[in-house]
């Protein structure tokens, strides 16, 4: 670690400003939420959280985010592999494009995806022939969340794959192992921590996503209503207590996931062969 306090100046200033900023922007608002939640009648709190509609929204939010993160896990690994290992025309362009979901406003993404995947859209039309409906079904939620989470796994796996020493693959090949065997026995375990970090980030991002989902989901209670939308609806029907209760539980879960990510990335920051 770098800190030898006393040599470098500015600790007080930097720390002071950081804490002041965090306090103003984070602690007070989150504190207000907790305070508000504390004034909610516990019975009402429990009833809101355990109502079947809230549970269905939680289930959809976590389920869809999980499925989307899994899709991104598989295709993210594939993309990272293809982008790092193979050559094809316009590769740089595709590589750059992977970050699009970070830069594109979610509302625009939502409108574009809905237009594309609705029963009369460019893609939806062909899927409809196969009897697959995407827009206005849980599948639509998954599609939107796949979009917003797409860059995470690619971008966490890519650097690891790039820095992977060729020596281990050479050794494996000279010992007579096939490519598939080498991949699953040697390469995959190396990529796994980074992939898991990316997966978790994509999952966390998907949980909170609102803008792109509301356009494509259909918003049916019990079926395609995500948790952030349910919070919004509770707010709109003057049910501040209910909104606060759901928001607090949702926030706590997200925070827990964040702690897990931090623990994971702490571990993957010290892999054996890098540095």
């Amino acid at each position, binding site marked *: 670690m770098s800190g030898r306090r006393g040599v470098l100046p500015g600790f007080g200033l930097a720390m002071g400003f950081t804490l002041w900023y965090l306090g103003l922007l984070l602690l007070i608002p989150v504190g207000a939420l907790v305070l508000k939640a504390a004034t909610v009648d516990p019975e009402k709190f429990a009833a809101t959280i355990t*109502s079947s509609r809230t549970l269905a929204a939680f289930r959809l939010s976590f389920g869809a985010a999980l499925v989307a993160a899994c899709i991104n896990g598989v295709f993210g690994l594939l993309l990272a592999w293809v982008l790092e290992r193979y050559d094809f025309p316009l590769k740089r362009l595709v590589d750059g494009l992977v970050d699009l979901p970070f830069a594109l406003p979610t509302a625009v993404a939502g409108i574009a995806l809905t237009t594309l995947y*609705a*029963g009369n859209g460019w893609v939806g039309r062909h899927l409809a022939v196969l009897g697959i409906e995407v*827009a*206005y079904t849980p599948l639509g939620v998954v599609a939107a969340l796949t979009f917003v989470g797409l860059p995470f796994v690619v971008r966490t796996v890519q650097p690891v794959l790039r820095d992977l020493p060729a020596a281990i693959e050479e050794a494996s090949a000279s010992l007579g192992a096939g490519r598939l065997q080498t991949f699953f026995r040697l390469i995959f375990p190396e990529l796994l921590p980074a992939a898991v970090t990316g997966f978790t980030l994509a999952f966390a991002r998907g949980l909170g996503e609102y803008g792109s989902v509301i356009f494509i989901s259909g*918003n049916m209670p019990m079926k395609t209503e995500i948790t952030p*939308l349910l919070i919004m*609806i509770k707010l709109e029907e*003057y049910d501040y207590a209910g909104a606060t209760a759901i928001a607090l539980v949702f926030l706590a879960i997200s925070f827990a996931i964040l702690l897990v990510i931090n623990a994971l990335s702490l571990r993957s920051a010290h892999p054996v062969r890098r540095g």
Partner: protein
Amino acid sequence: MRNRSRRFALLAALAAGALFAASGAAETTLLNVSYDPTREFYQELNVSFAKEWETRTGEKIAINQSHGGSGKQARSVIDGLEADVVTLALAYDIDMLAEKGLIPKNWQSRLPHNSCPYTSTMVLLVRKGNPKNIKDWSDLARPGVEVVTPNPKTSGAARWNYLSAWASGLEASGGDEAAARDFVARIYRNVKVLDTGARASTVTFVERGIGDVLVAWENEALLVVRKLNPDEFEIVIPSLSILAEPPVTVVDRVADKRGTRKIAEAYLEYLYAPFGQELAAKHYYRPRLEAVREEYAAQFPEVKLFTIDEVFGGWAKATAVHFSDGGMFDRIFEAGK
């Protein structure tokens, strides 16, 4: 390098200047917070009222508008959105403002016709040729019919829709509440997309091609059939529907604070005046003024209408029974799954 960055900074400053110089001179503003489908109507009304006000008083004013689901809009006003006037989809949402002390409890008696300068009703919009042969509310409960309507929790239109369906269920069963509940539950089981606002529902039905029937404001349905997609949809008038009364009021606390009460009151009176009535009719709202009503008689067919007071005993009661947390609507949805 330094020179270049200085030139760049200058350029950026110029661009920013051009962008911000456009802000106009200080003038009195009025904010009308309204619900979803009234966008086009108020856009036109605002322009002509501003002109009228200028010729009347010489004062230049600008009228701003904000639209969204009726409940959400009321919530925003309660949370501090400074609306001089609100023109919402149903009285209950304005009652909430009264409850929070923004307006007096008797707000609805301050203007003629229960403070509702125009009315509408709920009708059914189907695809050209009516392929599913939808004639009345009962057809919405048929298996295999896909219905599009917004969420009654967030949309005013959706509440009127829900209550119309309920009343029709009551009428068919001779007043049996359980039968009405079952009837409405069957309709909502057919609902394919439950958007948060009336507009979003129309977009879903018209543009995305989802569903066989859209339950909509008459003005919204007429807008689609007359203006947007004349050859693709038709309107079906149900045998019975609700008299939907979207009310308006000055928000006293805001108007008094901002000193805009005079303009705000004149603005609402303008809605009742011949020009406002004419414009409402042009935007497919049923006008109150006899002369205008006769002129537009062809546009608004006779419907057997009931009021919310007759069947449900007013908004407060209807809300408590049907739309509150854990109310009838919630139970229908939780049982449906």
